[in-house]
């Protein structure tokens, strides 16, 4: 399952990078798209190349989204690209360590990963909203705030549970 999550998020990266076309960043979109396309189907490559590609794809995506955010591409697009890049990078990392993990472990891993990335995205979106990059409507703000509060509570309770086992 993690394998499919990785494939899917890498494809989403390509979609987000292609959205850069709309803002005139054709070079970034093309280079980023090609790198992510190779990354999406890197399973048959040797592990050393895979490892190299994973780190460099993340760095390239980060560099492109930072440049995009700096040069006027909407923050939300950059943030979603950051979120999906983190997801595919960490999924690749997990697959390398534990490619044949049981399904229960994969679920547990995806829950942990999803929580962290969602929380990061929400924090980023909140920051963008505060800066006026995102137009505020009641319903999305309410939903986002509720989701963020729920996630915070989950993480704090999980941390407390792990500190006092038994």
């Amino acid at each position, binding site marked *: 399952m993690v394998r499919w999550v990785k494939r899917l998020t890498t494809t989403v990266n390509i979609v987000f990078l292609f959205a850069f076309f709309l803002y005139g960043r054709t070079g970034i979109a093309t280079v980023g798209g090609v790198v992510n396309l190779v990354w999406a189907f890197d399973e048959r490559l040797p592990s050393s190349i895979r490892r190299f590609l994973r*780190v460099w794809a*993340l*760095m390239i995506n*980060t560099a492109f*989204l*930072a440049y995009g*955010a*700096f040069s006027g591409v909407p*923050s939300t697009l*950059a*943030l979603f690209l*950051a*979120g999906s890049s*983190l997801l595919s990078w*960490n999924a690749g*990392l*997990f697959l390398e*360590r*534990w490619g044949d993990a049981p399904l229960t*472990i994969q679920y*547990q*891993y995806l829950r*942990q*990963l999803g929580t*962290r*990335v969602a*929380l*990061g*995205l929400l*924090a*980023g*979106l909140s*920051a*963008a909203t505060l*800066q006026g*990059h995102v137009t505020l409507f009641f319903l999305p703000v309410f939903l986002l705030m509720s989701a963020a509060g729920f996630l915070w509570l989950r*993480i704090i309770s*999980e*941390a407390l549970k*792990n500190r006092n*086992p038994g």
Partner: protein
Amino acid sequence: MTRAWSVITSLSLILLLGGLVLKNGALLAVALPYLLFSLIPFWRSLEEPRLAIERRLEPHHLWGGQPCHMTLSIQNVGNNLEEVSLADVLPAGLRGEGDLKYHGRLWAGQTETLFSIVRGVRGKYEFSGVKVVTSDLLGMSRHEEFVPSAGTLAVLPAMERLEGLKISPRRTRVYTGAIRSRESGAGVEFFGTRGYVPGDPLRHLNWKAGARWDILITNLFEQERVADVGIILDARSIVEVRADGESLFEHSIQAAASLAEYFLREGNRVGLLIYGRMIEWTFPGYGRQQRSRILAALAQAELGEHAVFKELERLPTRLFPSESQIVLVSPLLPRDVHMLRYLRALGYRVLVISPDAIAFEKLFLPQDEYTALAERIARMERNATLSKLRRAQVNVVEWDVTLPLRIPIKQAMVGLKRWYAG
């Protein structure tokens, strides 16, 4: 922390600093998901693993090539471990098959058992422990430690069952055995005759001799007793021949083990001296325990290069009872003749089992005229050495190691019987 954590933290800091320096809010907002990811290890610290590892080896002692079944029981006596990697660290020289690694989770109280088969060449192997790596599922933090789990495995040298090797030391021990003692008494071999003494068993009367001399004559029989046998294994580096991963020394060890097993089976008191790196002495003894001691010593035998023990002259003769049997297992050097003559002069019976270094080395050389010429020259030198020894009444069994040891021993025994009779 892991390398992945370093990458993500570096990226988050670059974005953060970039946002602050350029006073760009969008960059700061983008930095937040990265920053949160890099903070994971701080809000959820990784527990140190507490594992109880037990190693079982079945059997502890085995012959070269024989498999040893190893069971490794790992119990988590601490808290839950989400992801743990275990790798058994095998001593150098051992080969393992089966479960030597484990990757998975270990809940508190859970026990995992790993089964594997290990094989090795002759030697003594000390297991040290298991490398344990724990990490969180996201791969952001990692803890590595070495959990000791001791175990000892002795791979004994291969042995050959020998038969019919006769020795005849001047002095024997008091217990009944298989070696002719040169004294009359209870035995089966005819020793001589003497005048009848009341009390002599009538079935021992020699009627033919009595008829000839007109007196009663009794047959005497030679007592058969056990003897002291000292086996000397030549472990000097200077006599070693090694080619294509094959070692002549291994054949010498095999010969020493076979001889020790044979002499102990015959009831003799056997000691072992490994002469090379230093003097490694296994005190003489009888029976199975002594066999185990000798095989354990041979399992650990190594070649050595020591200025003091470069020549056989330093052989500590006092270790061997006077007039006992000494068996030297050595490829021999021409200059060793002097010491072997000296041993004979001291009254020891000396038997040399000499693995043929020339025939062994020839196996790994190109079969051309140069090799043939070199072999001829070396063979002449060796023959001269062996004939010097034979003249000094040292029994020599020359052993082409491609053949089983029992074959040259059988051939040599024909000549030796004649020699012992004299």
